[in-house]
């Protein structure tokens, strides 16, 4: 029984820290492979769209960035729920590590959307339900980062930030279903479980790029999480041992 694999063990920073460090290079490598495959399919092989010409190719970053901006928020809200319910140390660190990447994904989604909207709709920006709710998502990320940064005590910052995340989660279904619920200028979803409106190469290019963005986000968030862990746990034995044996910060 003693040797049984125990998932809860990884909820402790002392075991999670080295595990995350070992996994990061793999996530980076997988992200690069998916990215190259996705770019090759999307930019070189996929055919021209019959309505939007070559301009549609923005989809290969717009959709992955938008998906990640929503998905990262859901993961953060999940960590917040766990943290508030069970008072786990790791939860708040993970949420904080994910926030800047989520904000960047929301920003990229809005920026590539503007660059797509200009040639297709004739406007960089419209106050459309999809666009507006995605902008609110960016503000939620920024609000979460500002709130947690403004509170000195880390555990209290986690709690306040966690509440904000849980309240804001209502925005995610609004973004997702906005193109169904309202008459929007934004086009409907290109991918359905039943049938997809896209050519196979387009669809695979997009899915590969989404995997690339996903693995990238995990790698960067784990890097950030490790730093946060060291900083918050610097009074513990494992963190001291790690700092004394660490050469990454040498020469500074």
């Amino acid at each position: 029984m003693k040797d049984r694999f125990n998932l809860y063990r990884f909820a402790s920073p002392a075991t999670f820290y080295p595990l995350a460090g070992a996994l990061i290079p793999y996530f980076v490598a997988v992200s690069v492979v998916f990215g190259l495959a996705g770019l090759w399919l999307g930019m070189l092989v996929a055919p021209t769209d019959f309505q939007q010409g070559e301009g549609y190719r923005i989809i290969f970053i717009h959709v992955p960035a938008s998906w990640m901006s929503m998905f990262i928020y859901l993961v953060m809200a999940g960590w917040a729920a766990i943290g508030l319910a069970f008072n786990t140390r790791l939860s708040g660190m993970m949420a904080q590590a994910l926030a800047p990447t989520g904000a960047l994904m929301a920003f990229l989604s809005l920026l590539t959307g503007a660059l797509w909207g200009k040639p297709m709709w004739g406007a960089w920006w419209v106050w459309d339900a999809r666009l507006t709710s995605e902008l609110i998502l960016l503000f939620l990320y920024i609000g979460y980062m500002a709130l947690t940064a403004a509170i000195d005590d880390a555990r209290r910052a986690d709690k306040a930030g966690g509440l904000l995340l849980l309240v804001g989660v209502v925005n995610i279904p609004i973004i997702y279903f906005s193109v169904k619920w309202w008459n929007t200028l934004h086009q409907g979803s290109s991918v359905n479980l039943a049938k997809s409106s896209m050519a196979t190469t387009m669809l695979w290019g997009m899915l590969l790029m989404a995997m690339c963005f996903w693995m990238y986000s995990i790698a960067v968030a784990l890097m950030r999480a490790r730093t946060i862990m060291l900083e918050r746990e610097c009074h513990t034995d494992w963190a001291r041992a790690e700092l004394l044996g660490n050469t990454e910060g040498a020469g500074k």
Partner: protein
Amino acid sequence: MIHWNSFSDFIAMGGYGLYVWGSFGVTALIMAIEPIVVSRNRKSTIARLKRQLRAETRNTAE
């Protein structure tokens, strides 16, 4: 198998070059800069924590 006839076609993107390459360029830039910022921040944090730790151990030794 390759969709494009020439490299200049590829760059022009059927007249949407500015929008398509603008999107890909900014994304590539952000995905290059974010990890650099994160690892710099990590290095400076580790250096600071090490200084703190050394100062603490010196104080307790005295």
